[in-house]
């Protein structure tokens, strides 16, 4: 019977980690539904971006208050994982504070965890106030309805509870308090429990310990369903983000092939393309659904933290237009999840559900409101480009559906006929010289 807690612990660990691994596999499969894209270039630049932006949080500091609080929570999260390691070893082998054997260093470690825990607690409370009492505008946009809003709050409550549990766990651990090293904060909490018997103290300690570790396992598995996936995905996302100047849009290769053919005076315009047999599905231009996007765009959709920094800098959004770059990312993720569930339900194959990203999630009105100004790309703390998705969908609208607004069609006809967006004669191009 003595081994029961260890066995229960092992089971909890296996279930918790197993479920997490399963969801990660699903995540990878869904991301791979996107088209392939070559991201093998600029390795050192990419590494630098990842280190600076994801690890170093360089873009967070641009909004000092949020940035500072975020860094505390982030450092707290990373460092407290050392404590989790101890918990896991203790849990599996029935030991108690196995690392305490390292002597005074242990006190220093736990002491700093305790301080961090308090700082995190304070930060999280400020975050909660900003969202719910001060009501920062960017957290109250139209796309921030039920789930996105609750999701953000849940995690804040979660952190509050986890941090409190950690402190209570330390405060009620009599042997730890007796060591009197590292109990920097918990020594002030311990007196709250002074009336407790030895037994009930132990009970409180064990309960806090268990809820703490179970809470962490639940948190781990909550990630997949939450915007907090960015804790993990910020790293690959900043690595795979574009390293080109922001103004540079890719030149679609499929189009280049056709243009070269059209421009080549030697090509026979009536000749059938040679490779009709090899790829009989003609390539689609632009994106209509998530599977037309490339996998880095899909990765970004899972990475988006819904912080709304993009939207709060978008000129279209600031002037009351329907476009919100954050919504573009949220829609992409929602649709991708829907496609993934469809595949799960149909034994690994996607069955047409009569829906698509374009139209059912993102409207033309949103797409046409974008000025391609790159403000959203500049603002995003984890290098997401909502603009690239907007552009791919515009491409689909124009090249596959000829569905541009009339004025734009006129502009394009003018370019085609006169080499200028206006209906002037190309022969008049130099008239300014003598006017």
């Amino acid at each position, binding site marked *: 019977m003595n081994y029961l807690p260890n066995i229960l612990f092992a089971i909890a660990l296996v279930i918790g980690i197993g479920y997490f691994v399963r969801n990660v596999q699903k995540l990878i499969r869904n991301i791979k539904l996107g088209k392939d894209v070559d991201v093998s270039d600029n390795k050192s630049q990419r590494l630098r971006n990842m280190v600076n932006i994801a690890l170093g949080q360089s873009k967070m500091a641009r909004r000092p208050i949020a940035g500072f609080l975020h860094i505390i929570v982030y450092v707290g999260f990373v460092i407290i994982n050392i404590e989790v390691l101890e918990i896991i070893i203790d849990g599996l082998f029935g030991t108690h504070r196995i690392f305490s054997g390292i002597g005074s260093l242990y006190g220093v470690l736990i002491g700093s965890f305790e301080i961090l825990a308090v700082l995190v607690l304070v930060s999280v409370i400020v975050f909660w106030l900003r969202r719910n009492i001060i009501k920062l505008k960017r957290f109250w946009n139209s796309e921030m309805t039920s789930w996105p809003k609750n999701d953000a709050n849940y995690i804040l409550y979660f952190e509050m509870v986890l941090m409190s549990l950690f402190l209570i766990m330390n405060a009620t651990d009599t042997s730890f308090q007796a060591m009197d090293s590292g109990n920097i904060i918990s020594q002030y909490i311990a007196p709250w429990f002074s009336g407790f018997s030895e037994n009930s103290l132990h009970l409180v300690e064990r309960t806090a310990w268990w809820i703490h570790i179970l809470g962490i396992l639940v948190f781990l598995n909550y990630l997949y369903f939450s915007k907090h996936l960015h804790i993990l995905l910020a790293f690959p996302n900043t690595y795979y983000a574009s390293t080109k100047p922001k103004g540079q849009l890719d030149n679609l290769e499929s189009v280049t092939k056709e243009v070269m053919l*059209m421009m080549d005076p030697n090509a026979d315009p009536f000749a059938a393309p040679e490779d009709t047999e090899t790829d009989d599905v003609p390539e689609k231009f632009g994106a209509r659904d998530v599977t037309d996007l490339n996998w880095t765009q899909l990765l970004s959709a899972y990475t988006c933290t819904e912080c709304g920094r993009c939207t709060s800098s978008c000129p279209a959004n600031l002037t009351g237009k329907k476009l919100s770059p954050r919504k573009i990312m949220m829609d992409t993720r929602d649709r991708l999840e829907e496609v993934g569930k469809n595949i799960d339900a149909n034994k690994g194959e996607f069955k047409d559900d009569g829906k698509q990203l374009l139209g059912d999630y993102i409207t033309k009105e949103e797409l046409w409101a974008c000025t391609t100004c*790159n403000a959203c790309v*500049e603002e995003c703390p984890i290098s997401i480009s909502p603009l690239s998705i907007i552009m791919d969908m515009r491409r689909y609208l124009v090249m596959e559906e000829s569905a541009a607004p009339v004025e734009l069609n006129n502009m394009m006809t003018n370019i085609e006929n006169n080499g*200028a967006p206006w209906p002037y004669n*190309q022969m008049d191009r130099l008239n300014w010289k003598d006017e």
Partner: protein
Amino acid sequence: MNLKVLTMAECMAEGRQPEILFWVGSAGSYDDRAKKITKAFVKLLNAANIDFAVLGTEESCTGDAAKRAGNEFLFQMQAVTNIEVLNAYEVKKIVTACPHSFNTLKNEYPSLGGNYEVLHHTQYLQQLIQEGKLKITNNTFKGKRITFHDPCYLGRANEVYEAPRELLKELGVDLVEMKRHKRTALCCGAGGAQMFKEPEKGDKDVNVLRTEDALQTNPDIIATGCPYCNTMMTDGVKFKEKEADIQVLDVAELLANNQEL
């Protein structure tokens, strides 16, 4: 003063290669307001004795607006045609007063076979001043409150923030920054082919909001570095009924006016 402008074809006939090609762009060629910017820049080139040429009737739209409207076909047709002409003249260095042309020529033409050194006119003018080819002799704008509106395609898109500001400082102006400037600058509302269509429904137009940003600095002049920004800001100032007090001028115009060219 007469403008001295040669075309690449004329240079070719003389059997020589000019130092730079001035890419005028569609707005710079046809739009009445933008033509003034084109001429101001040419005056400066003339004053500095620069050996340059334009393509003239052989120039065609870069295709920027078509590409950003989503028409990749039309863009690449334009690009390939322009690249053929540029490569036939063995062009090495291009200067343009339009950030959209600048971005497209610099970033999007290379993978289609067009490789050139591309400069925005403010970068080039700054070079000319550094090299002493262009001299600031008057101080018409000294002490004037001037705010500079960063064009998205020069600023955020290509991270050119300093060249226009350095030029303004050369003029001894009192440079005041808007709340949103450099990488946080607000778009004028014209990019991404918006110039050619009505905006979607909203509370106000982007250029009005951007003009409000500028007006908060209480400027005498709003300086721009893009023909489209210029139009948008001019319209914004008119909308706010401030056109009697506030001018909207391209950095090249400020320099040319300063020199009374």
